[in-house]
């Protein structure tokens, strides 16, 4: 559970940065208080090894970014961790509990909740119904109890209050009666994040939260993600936008070709030679010679 005690704004960022200050800048580095520890997670699609992560730890209460070039296996790794895909080998512990072979819905119930790269707003349900669906432990979701409103009516009321509070926080309260399908792309991202928060998660995994969001909404989304940390949640997110990664993350993990190739605070990681190579290729800073022949030779070498 995210702890509810009041903290001074920004203090959790400081705490997270301090906790990570002494962590070695090497792939698979041990963290002082990991919430998630993955070992030897491998997923192959036929001949292609999409994910091959030896060891990685995610610090509790911090915002960790997972970056890497296209096809690096970030989303696949997400799917594996959250039970939406099954790895060939590997184990991973969330709060010390082994999640290998645990189905997606149980992973979500344990407090590790995810969003999707392609937003999954439930179009033909209202915004409020989307939110209510997120609440866990609803007695009215059991088939026999659902027939008798007195068994779930009061719980429904408190769920609605919680949903309304969250919608107000995300500036979506006036949309609560609209169909989710009528929202813009950015609003759907907001709705998906708010809906995920209805489950009261401990760790939030955001798959490209900024993809397709207009710049005006980006700032508010960034604010909401920082908010998650202030409320004591752990955030792991996949993102391509480097400015955003630099702005909000406490720690960055870089993946390329399925493996973790670098780790560190955002500014240091972006100077890392291996990272630059992964993004731009091996010989990006060598001057091209005037003759086309020698260029071809270099490409072949």
């Amino acid at each position: 559970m995210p702890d509810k005690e009041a903290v001074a704004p920004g203090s959790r960022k400081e705490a997270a940065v301090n906790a990570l200050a002494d962590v070695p800048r090497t792939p698979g580095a041990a963290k002082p208080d990991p919430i998630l520890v993955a070992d030897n997670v491998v997923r192959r699609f036929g001949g292609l090894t999409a994910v091959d992560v030896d060891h990685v730890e995610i610090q509790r209460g911090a915002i960790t970014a997972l970056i890497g070039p296209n096809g690096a296996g970030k989303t696949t790794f997400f799917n594996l961790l959250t039970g939406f895909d099954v790895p060939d080998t590997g184990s991973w512990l969330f709060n010390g509990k082994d999640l290998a072979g645990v189905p997606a819905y149980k992973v979500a119930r344990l407090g590790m909740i995810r969003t999707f790269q392609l937003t999954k707003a439930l179009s033909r349900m209202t915004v409020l119904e989307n939110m209510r669906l997120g609440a866990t432990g609803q007695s009215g979701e059991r088939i026999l109890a659902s027939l008798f409103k007195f068994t779930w009516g009061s719980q429904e009321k408190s769920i609605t209050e919680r949903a309304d509070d969250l919608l107000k926080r995300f500036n979506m309260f006036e949309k609560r009666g609209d169909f989710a399908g009528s929202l813009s792309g950015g609003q759907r991202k907001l709705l998906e994040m708010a809906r995920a928060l209805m489950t009261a998660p401990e760790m939030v995994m955001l798959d490209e939260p900024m993809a397709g969001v207009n710049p005006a909404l980006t700032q508010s989304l960034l604010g909401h993600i920082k908010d998650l940390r202030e409320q004591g949640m752990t955030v792991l997110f996949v993102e391509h936008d480097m400015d955003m990664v630099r702005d909000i993350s406490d720690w960055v993990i870089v993946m390329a070709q399925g493996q973790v190739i670098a780790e560190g605070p955002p500014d240091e990681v972006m100077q890392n030679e291996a990272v630059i190579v992964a993004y731009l290729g091996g010989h990006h800073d060598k001057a091209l010679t005037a003759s086309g022949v020698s260029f071809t030779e270099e490409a072949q070498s």
Partner: protein
Amino acid sequence: MDWGYIFSVMISSAFGVEAIVFGLAAIGINMQFGYTGLLNFGQSAFMAIGGYSIAVTVVQLGVSFWWGIVIGFIASVLLALLLGVPTLRLRADYLAIVTIAASEIVRLLVRSVTLKGIFGGSDGLQSFSGGFFALNPIPVGDYNLGPVNFTNRELFVLLVGWLLIALACLLTWLLVRSPWGRVLKGIREDEDAVRSLGKNVYLYKMQALIIGGMIGTVAGFVFAVGNEAVSPDFFGTDTTFFAYAILILGGAARVFGPVLGTVIFWAIIQGTDVFLRSGIDAGLPVISLMSGSQAAVIRFILVGLMIMLLMIFRPQGILGDRKELALDAR
């Protein structure tokens, strides 16, 4: 042309036994397809189970039809589990293929020569409704309800049938207004999203399949008792697709959609039939070019045309909400 007669036929078919049977079948499909997005193309199998469990228990075992009802419900739950366990974890189309195949298997099984001793082969089974009609509180005689005439037996079947439709609608309404129904609608929209929120999607899909199938079984009970006979060829894929047509006509994911759909569907099917036949008898131009048996087919073409027009101008069905449909599905 006797317009009064045509009108009375339309009224009696709109509320007749067939309207009840298909209405119930469509209410079951509404739970599966309308609310959960499950494509069950095997509703006729659930109906066959209902019809034959009453027929077989009464005719072959010689016990009360109440046992047939109990056995029918148990068998339909088993069939739903059998169909659902392997397919509900897969994409939606697998369920469609498996259910349509299963319904043909059930039909061919009860039709088979090998099992003629139990199910009566292609002749089916007859005269097993005595126990039901013994409960009839309506005194013997004919009753005039407006333009339509009913015997006390018919009236009893209709009364019980519409009571069952009312109960099925009440059940649907209670279920879909609850958080349980909200999960179903969420699954219809995107099951991965629902899974990511910690709901056991597989369990909900199975529950929806079972409930819809059991309502289909009730349709089979009414069919068997109301007609005092069951024969295998009624339980073909046509029956399932009529029920789908009824659901789409009335409006999917609406509690009263299937009820309105079945009333309109049967009024038109039987109304056009009588209209065309009496047109032939009266020697009306164009219509009298047809023979009686051709007219019987033309009515289905007309219903098909009507559904096409409805899909073009009112794709949400009669009771549906246009706004809802205008949204992009994903």
